[in-house]
């Protein structure tokens, strides 16, 4: 069991999300940065669909009421066990009553904590991913007790840690395909789209990232159709929204770009005021 000493501003439990419920309007959800979550689970020999903690702010702490192994991947929030710094992307042996906390934010926007055999919170519609109106709560709360599997492989610390190229967090390049309505854009708009550096606004969350710069927009809404995580919508004001994992499943704004999976993961690690450049992969 893990006791949540301080929940922080936005900490959720996430797995790979829920699929098969679009027919009743339920979003996919799931870890924002699957690359980092997969890495943490892999280092622990977990299945990739095991639930992890997704932490968006460093002001949280947890106490392990049982011994286990953990691995932290993704953003570097200077993780500490009992106030002593630990490494990212390495299996860490946890003793009963150890306390995990975080310090300075060095890079990235979301850090992932994987636990041996995963976090065993309630599964709703085949997933543990928290979402308002689906799971009982949409974030974890201070005082919560998180169940974990106590049968884990007791081993010593391995010193081996995997080094993630920091470019993963720092590169401005966001690769994407043409979206279904891309061809409605004029040559001038297309040029503008690929030559502008777009700034991530503070209105950015698990549902979507709103960008600040405006693209000239003269075409109307479309008949409501599907949208996906990674869809870039052009709103009537000319502002762009990059939809993220908790996005609705349908929308009425033109879908001008579609990010590839790697870029959805990469943008999930960007903070307010960071700048991104779209790069087109379509021929």
């Amino acid at each position, binding site marked *: 069991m893990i006791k949540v000493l301080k929940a922080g501003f936005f900490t959720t439990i996430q797995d790979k999300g829920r*699929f*098969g*419920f*679009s*027919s*009743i*309007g*339920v*979003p*996919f959800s799931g870890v924002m940065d699957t690359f980092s979550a997969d890495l943490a689970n892999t280092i622990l020999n977990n299945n990739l669909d095991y639930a992890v903690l997704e932490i968006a702010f460093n002001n949280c702490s947890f106490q392990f009421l049982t011994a286990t192994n953990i691995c932290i991947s993704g953003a570097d929030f200077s993780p500490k066990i009992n106030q002593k710094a630990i490494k990212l992307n390495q299996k860490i042996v946890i003793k009963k009553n150890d306390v995990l906390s975080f310090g300075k934010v060095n890079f990235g926007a979301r850090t992932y904590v994987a636990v041996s055999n995963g976090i065993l919170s309630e599964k*709703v*519609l085949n997933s543990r991913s928290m979402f308002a*109106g*689906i799971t009982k709560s949409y974030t974890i709360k201070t005082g919560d007790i998180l169940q974990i599997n106590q049968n884990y492989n007791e081993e010593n610390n391995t010193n081996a840690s995997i080094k993630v190229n920091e470019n993963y967090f720092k590169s401005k390049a966001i690769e994407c*395909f043409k*979206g*279904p309505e891309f061809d409605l854009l004029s040559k001038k708009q297309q040029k503008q789209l690929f030559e502008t550096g777009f700034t991530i606004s503070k209105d950015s969350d698990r549902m979507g990232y709103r960008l600040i710069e405006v693209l000239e927009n003269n075409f109307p809404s*479309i*008949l*409501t*159709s*599907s949208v*996906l995580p*990674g*869809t870039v919508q052009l709103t009537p004001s000319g502002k762009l929204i990059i939809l993220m994992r908790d996005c*609705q*499943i*349908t929308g009425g704004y033109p879908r001008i770009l*579609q*990010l*590839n*999976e790697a870029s959805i993961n990469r943008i999930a690690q960007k903070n307010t005021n960071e700048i991104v450049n779209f790069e087109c992969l379509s021929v």
Partner: protein
Amino acid sequence: MFDKITYKPFGEKAILIEWEPRIAVEISEEILLFQSKIKAKKNNSIVDYIVAYNSLTLIFKHQIHSFQIEVEHLKKIYASKTKTFKKASFLWEIPVCYDLEFGIDLLEMSEKLNLQTSEIIKLHTQSLYRVYFVGFLPGFLYLGGLDEKIHFNRKSNPRLKVPKGAVGIGGKQTGVYPSESAGGWNIIGKTPIDFFNINKQQPCFANSGDFIKFVEISKNDFLKIQKEVKQNTYTVSKTFKI
């Protein structure tokens, strides 16, 4: 069968199939039929289907290796004469209280449309609405069939909070807010029925292709049904619709 459907890649894991951009029963039926044919043929590689007015989006489990091969396969399925059972559709009767306490935009609509509120209610309750698809929020039904006389533009400033159960009109559409949310539709009434309840075996009772009819109820009935819904003793009235 429609000749002009198009297939577009939608990122690495999805294919978007589009019909002509209009709201029509025959297109909606065609989409549901195609979906059931695909479901019958290739169960495991597709993890979800998003149905909308003129589109069907297939979400694949893994990256699509060859878009061309998938499309050829889908075209064959589309053309196949395979008999699929047409899914039974239901007509759901939804009780709505149009009391001015709930129908907070009724008076404004009445004035601007030059219709008595009773006429608006009559027009709203006499139509049969087709459920085209569910989206926007869990349990939000996109309904078609609103009488032209009560088409009414969305509010220019959306409300930050529209209560759960609010029945609204937005342009050519009508619908029910399944949970509290921001929204720009004009609110004409409220239903005590849950359109989405995660604690039920079937969180949302209605499916694409079903029909909805709104039935006017008094405030007393509203309170009574609300209580029954809470106690889990209320059943939404349904009949087969062929």
